Each structure stands twice: as structure tokens, then as C-alpha cells.
């Protein structure tokens, strides 16, 4: 069976019914002691055998973080987080590469299976020797996976194929060891270590993440993909991802997230930095379905993420697409700094809040260069007691002649206990620039539901169909495999929200 078909099948299996990712893998972990202080930062850096400049950078970030406060401006509420009551480092002990899947910890394989990762990719992920050399079958574009399993990247796939093109796709830890110059040149240049409370925390204690470098003129031959998982109890997940597209390079990156079910809230504070040089193009797609908490608002992930792209080069382009269905709280503003002339930034977003979920998400488009263009399409869906806020900034500097922005914010309400809020900021300091903003708020109408049901669709299928229609402009931006998963997730997330 071709890998893609197998993936689709497993996705289908995995996405039928309620939250199916509520499992916990029982693998021996190596923990750092609970709490956060300079020693922990040193411990992490030492564990990862890092050069001194990186340790210094982490320590500067930690010092900055100590003087910072959590942002209070998002429209979300949650009890205070005790940052000393969490583990900041946990790594699977297994280190030596197994010879075949039989030797791999079966618990780990079970986790992969539940995630819907095909067997072949499981082998590669688990580090089975030689598994990465198997060519991708089927005529479709293969997907390379870098699985981050509790803070340490277990393995990367299709490495050899990418290496032939000169593409670097590896864990951040490997990149620090093998490509220190590239890491040093770009790390923290888009999101500085002092950027905000959560970014500073991440800079101090990040344990792993993905690193991508696409050399000049290279079009990456496959979608690059990362599965993020939070596994150990009370372990914060601090991913650090850095993607660099050199001049004329093109890459599409997929980020998928699932997490086991838990009662305590778990903190996830990732940082993603993208750099696009002249004529480079980066497409970054996210489907986030972390545990949202139960219907009473107990448990769930706190997702406080800083994602930012620098369109440094002329005619460079960055496109963010996100489908946010999970997490108890989402605080996330994938942004573009449009520095290069004629550079383009795009943000396509679907955010669902059901039960007690809260989302405060949007984007920032900072227009610095001439003829820069940006497009924002945001679809917020609120159900149950969910609160959904679009918060966006379009800033056009005096030098950004002829800059253009188009923003569309649509909200869909299901039921009468939820809320939708739109907070757009537009700061235009340039006479020749143009900005447009459109916003709508609507409900799923009774006549739409009845029409669908009269044609034989169940109530839930009808809601799914209508919601998918509402999100169509965003979903069509997703790569095929993701679009299928996303459509199912939209429906699952809204189960029980009507009637």
C-alpha cells in the first residue's frame, strides 16, 4: 500500500470518534530535577553538549525572563502557572540504534501507530538502521518526518534523499553539533531572546526542535513534516524551530500536533523562526489538535507560541496556514516582517473553540519594504462556552511605498454561550499604502441544518459540512494529506455542540 494511502487510512481510523490520542507511553525517562534556575539551564545545555556561546545565550535569556511578566493583554483567563513546579528536561533513554522494528520499544511504536504514522515511517522514526534508505513508493510527493518525542528528536527520515540536494533537515540538537555556524548566524535573529515572556523562557530551556536549511536555488522535493508530542507528565514542551530558505529556495513545512489526555494543564511555549532570503518561499502549515480539556474545562494544553517570519530578501514569500482545533488556551500570532522589497506575507487561519476552550490568535504583518503585500484570512468558530478572539496588527512604515494589505475576519457562532471577538489594529504611516478590512459574524442557521438533514445528513455531518464550507478558503491552502485530517478534526472538535 502506498505510504500516502496508508497515512490517509490511519488518519481516518484515528480521527473517528472523540479525542483518541489520550494515551501515555511508558518509556523510561531521564529527568532533570523539577524547577527552573540557572543550574537547570546549565544542565540542559550540558546534556546536549552545547558550545559555550549557546549556553551564554540561554543564560542571558534566563536572566531576561526573570525580570519579565506574563502578558496580561490576551483575552484569556487561567489560574497562575507555577514555573517551579515542572520538569524542564525529559529524554527517552534508548540511545543505540536498533536493527529492526522488533528491537524498538513497543510502547514507542504503539504511540506512533496511534498517531497514524505508517509502519515504514515508524521504522525510520525509531532509528532502525537502513530504514531511511527505502525509497518512497507511489507517485505522490513523499513526506519527511522529524518526530519530536518529548523534547528530543527521535530520528529524521528521508535524510539521504534530502542530503543529495544539500538540504539540511534535522533536529535542532543535531544542527547545533553539525552546523553550528548556520545556527549561530540565524538563531534568535527573528525572535530575539528578549522578545516576550514565553519566547525568553523558551530560549533559556528549549530542548529540541527542527532545523531546516534549503540552499540557494533548491526547491525542496518533498513536504517536510514534524510530529510534536507531549508525553511525560508535567513536562513543559519547549520546541525551537528554525527554517532558513536561502536565495531562490522553496520549501513546504508541515507541523502536526497531538498529545495524550491529562488532567493537569500543560504548558507549551514554542518558538518558530523563519528566514526567507531573495526570491525564497516558505510555506508553513500547522494542524494543532492538542488535548483541549474535558467538557467541564478540566485539563488541556496551554499553547503559548511565538511564530515569526522574516522576509528579508526581495520578492521573498512566507505563507502561514494554521488549523487550531485543540489546546485549552491558544496564544499565538504567526507573523511576517516584510523587509525585502516586493515581499509577500500570508496568514490563513481556522481556530475552533468548543466547551471551555479559549483562543486569542491572529497575526502581525509588519510592512517595511516597498511594494510589500500581505493577505490575512481568519475564520473563527466558537461553540459551547468557547471564547475566540482574532487579534491582528497591520503596520505599514513610512518607507513601505505602495504596500497593500487585505484582511478578512469571519466568525461563526454555534449556540448562545460562546463568544467571538475581533481586535484588528491597523497602523498606516504611508500615504501610498492601501489596507482593506472585512469582517463578518454569523451563525449556523436552522434552515441550513434542516436542508442538509432533509437530504439525509446527520446533524453532526451537517454541522461538519457547513463548518468546512465556512473554512474552505483556509483549508484549500493546506497540503492534501493535512486537508483531509483537518476536515475530520473540525468535525470532531464540534461534536455535541449542536442540539
Amino acid at each position, binding site marked *: 500500500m502506498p505510504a500516502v494511502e496508508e497515512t490517509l487510512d490511519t488518519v481516518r481510523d484515528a480521527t473517528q470518534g472523540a479525542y483518541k490520542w489520550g494515551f501515555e507511553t511508558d518509556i523510561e525517562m531521564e529527568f532533570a530535577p523539577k524547577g527552573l534556575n540557572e543550574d537547570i539551564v546549565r544542565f540542559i545545555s550540558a546534556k546536549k553538549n552545547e558550545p559555550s556561546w549557546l549556553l551564554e545565550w540561554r543564560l542571558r535569556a534566563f536572566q531576561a525572563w526573570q525580570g519579565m511578566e506574563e502578558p496580561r493583554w490576551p483575552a484569556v483567563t487561567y489560574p497562575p502557572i507555577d514555573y517551579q513546579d515542572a520538569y524542564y528536561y525529559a529524554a527517552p533513554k534508548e540511545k543505540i540504534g536498533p536493527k529492526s522494528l522488533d528491537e524498538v520499544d513497543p510502547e514507542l511504536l504503539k504511540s506512533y501507530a496511534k498517531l497514524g504514522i505508517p509502519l515504514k515511517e515508524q521504522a525510520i522514526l525509531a532509528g532502525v538502521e537502513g530504514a531511511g534508505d527505502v525509497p518512497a513508493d507511489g507517485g505522490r510527493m513523499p513526506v519527511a518526518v522529524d518526530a519530536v518525542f518529548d523534547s528530543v528528536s527521535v530520528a529524521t527520515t528521508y535524510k539521504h534523499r534530502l542530503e543529495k540536494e544539500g538540504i539540511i533537515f534535522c533536529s535542532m540538537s543535531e544542527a547545533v553539533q553539525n552546523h553550528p555556524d548556520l545556527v549561530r548566524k540565524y538563531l534568535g535573529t527573528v525572535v530575539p531572546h528578549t522578545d516576550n515572556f514565553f519566547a525568553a523562557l523558551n530560549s533559556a530551556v528549549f530542548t529540541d526542535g527542527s532545523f531546516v536549511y534549503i540552499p540557494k536555488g533548491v526547491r525542496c522535493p518533498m513536504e517536510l513534516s514534524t510530529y510534536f508530542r507531549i508525553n511525560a507528565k508535567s513536562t513543559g514542551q519547549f520546541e525551537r524551530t528554525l527554517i532558513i530558505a536561502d536565495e531562490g529556495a522553496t520549501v513546504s513545512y508541515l507541523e502536526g500536533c497531538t498529545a495524550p489526555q491529562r488532567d493537569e494543564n500543560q504548558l507549551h511555549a514554542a518558538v518558530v523562526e523563519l528566514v526567507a532570503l531573495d526570491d525564497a518561499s516558505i510555506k508553513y502549515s500547522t494542524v494543532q489538535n492538542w488535548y483541549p480539556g474535558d467538557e467541564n474545562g478540566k485539563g488541556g494544553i496551554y499553547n503559548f507560541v511565538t511564530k515569526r517570519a522574516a522576509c528579508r530578501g526581495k520578492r521573498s514569500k512566507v505563507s502561514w496556514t494554521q488549523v487550531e482545533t485543540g489546546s485549552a488556551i491558544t496564544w499565538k500570532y504567526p507573523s511576517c516582517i516584510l523587509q525585502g522589497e516586493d515581499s509577500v506575507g500570508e496568514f490563513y487561519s481556522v481556530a475552533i473553540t468548543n466547551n471551555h476552550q479559549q483562543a486569542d490568535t491572529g497575526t502581525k504583518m509588519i510592512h517595511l519594504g516597498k511594494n510589500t503585500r500581505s493577505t490575512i484570512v481568519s475564520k473563527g468558530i466558537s461553540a459551547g462556552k468557547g471564547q475566540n478572539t482574532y487579534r491582528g496588527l497591520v503596520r505599514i512604515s513610512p518607507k513601505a511605498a505602495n504596500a497593500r494589505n487585505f484582511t478578512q475576519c469571519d466568525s461563526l457562532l454555534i449556540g448562545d454561550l460562546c463568544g467571538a471577538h475581533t481586535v484588528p489594529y491597523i497602523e498606516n504611516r504611508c500615504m501610498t499604502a492601501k489596507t482593506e478590512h472585512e469582517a463578518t459574524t454569523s451563525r449556523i*442557521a*436552522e*434552515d*441550513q441544518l*434542516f*436542508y*442538509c*438533514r*432533509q*437530504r*439525509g*445528513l*446527520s*446533524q453532526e*455531518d451537517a454541522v461538519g*459540512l*457547513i463548518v*468546512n*464550507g*465556512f*473554512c*474552505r*478558503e483556509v483549508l484549500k491552502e493546506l497540503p492534501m494529506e493535512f486537508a483531509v485530517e483537518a476536515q475530520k478534526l473540525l468535525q470532531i472538535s464540534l461534536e455535541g455542540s449542536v442540539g
Partner: protein
Amino acid sequence: MLRIENLTAEVEGKPILKGVTLEIPDGEIHAVMGPNGAGKSTLSYALAGREGYEITGGSVLLNGQDLLEMEPEERAASGLFLAFQYPVELPGVGNANFLRTALNAIRRTRGEAEVDAMQFLKLARTRMKELSMPEDMLKRGVNVGFSGGEKKRNEILQMALLQPKIAILDETDSGLDIDALKIVADGVNAMRGPDFSALVITHYQRLLNHIVPDRVHVLADGRIVASGGPELAHRLEAEGYAGVLDEAA
């Protein structure tokens, strides 16, 4: 066979249907005519199970099955189809996707194999040709930006694809020009057969020139007050409702 017996229904606490009794044997087409406010649309929504149309008494059996016990989608699966007076727009939902989802939902319930995208496209194209519908209507959002005539033709296309046992056409002729009216009528006539019956609700005789009914019923103030052959429709056209109603009273 659709058997409606002494059906009473109210909307927002107000009685609208006050005891409708009607029998439509398989293979027959019946027309229900009546003045504004007689309860024609309420009858169609009550049969289809729309929320807000509360059944207060009576029974409805479709081939022996109790329709009133079923959810709207179960009624659809058991073979009841309602062509809407005002077809609803579903923005962003592709017409082809909608039609295939509906078809497969009904096939699933009936224990039949689902059709894949290719099979569906072939089927849809054949039906669309018969209804003189341009193929691009499959690609557009469900009823979004459709003209009045296109919406009604889309209803008939759905009926042709879903192959119901009984179709209720709720003033399908309203807002149609003569050409569109003919296409719609042809669509219904093409369905005629021993396993298909229809309840055609209309104000005017016009549609019944194209879809010749086996029986005509007059609905007034929530009751069937007169029944007859096709000639009853002609009389209504000539004399208006007043004459027929006086006679019934």
C-alpha cells in the same frame, strides 16, 4: 404508499393543520392546492420533520413505517424528499460534494455501497444533461449565487440523484419562467413509475398542465376540503378558491 391520517400540527402554539387526511398510493402524483395561509408549507415541513412544526395529533405512515417517530435524516433515508420552496444557500460547500455526501448518507442507511467521486461525477453528469443544467453548477457553492430557476432545477437534480419513493414539491413552480417550469416538470415526469409518488403543492393550475396529477386536493384552513381528478384544478383556475370553498362549506 403515504398515508396521512387526521394530522394536526401547530407553529409557535398556533394550530395550523387541523386534521389532514390524505392517501397517496405508489405510482400516483397528487396535487395539493389552496389559498395563502391554508397550511400548505406547514404540511410539507411537518412531513419532513422540521423543528418548530409541532405535531399534536394524527399519524403519518410511509409504506407502513411511522414517519413521525423519525429524525429528518431518517425520513430522507426511508425515501421522503422535499423540494424546498426557498432552497437554502450553503456558502463554501461545493454542490458536487454536497450531492455526493447526501447520496452516500442515504445509500449507507439503505445498506448500499457508497459511490466514489468518479462514479458520482458520471451519474451527476447524465442527470444534469437530462435537466439541461450547465456542468459548472457542480463546482459552485450549494445554491450560492444561483438564480431562482437554477435553485429549483438544483432541487430537481437532487431528487433525480437521490431517487426518493415520495417527493414533496413545495411551490416548486413559484418564480419560474415557462422554460424553467417545463424543465422542472420534465424532471418530475421522468421519475414517474410504479415506485415513485409525489405530492405537488402549488397555488396555480399552470404547473399541473405539465405535471398532470392523478388526484387534486384543496387544502383550506388546515383541512382537505375537496378532492377530485385533474378537472378540479381547472375549476379552481376558472372559479377561484372562493367558489369551491363555499361549496365545501
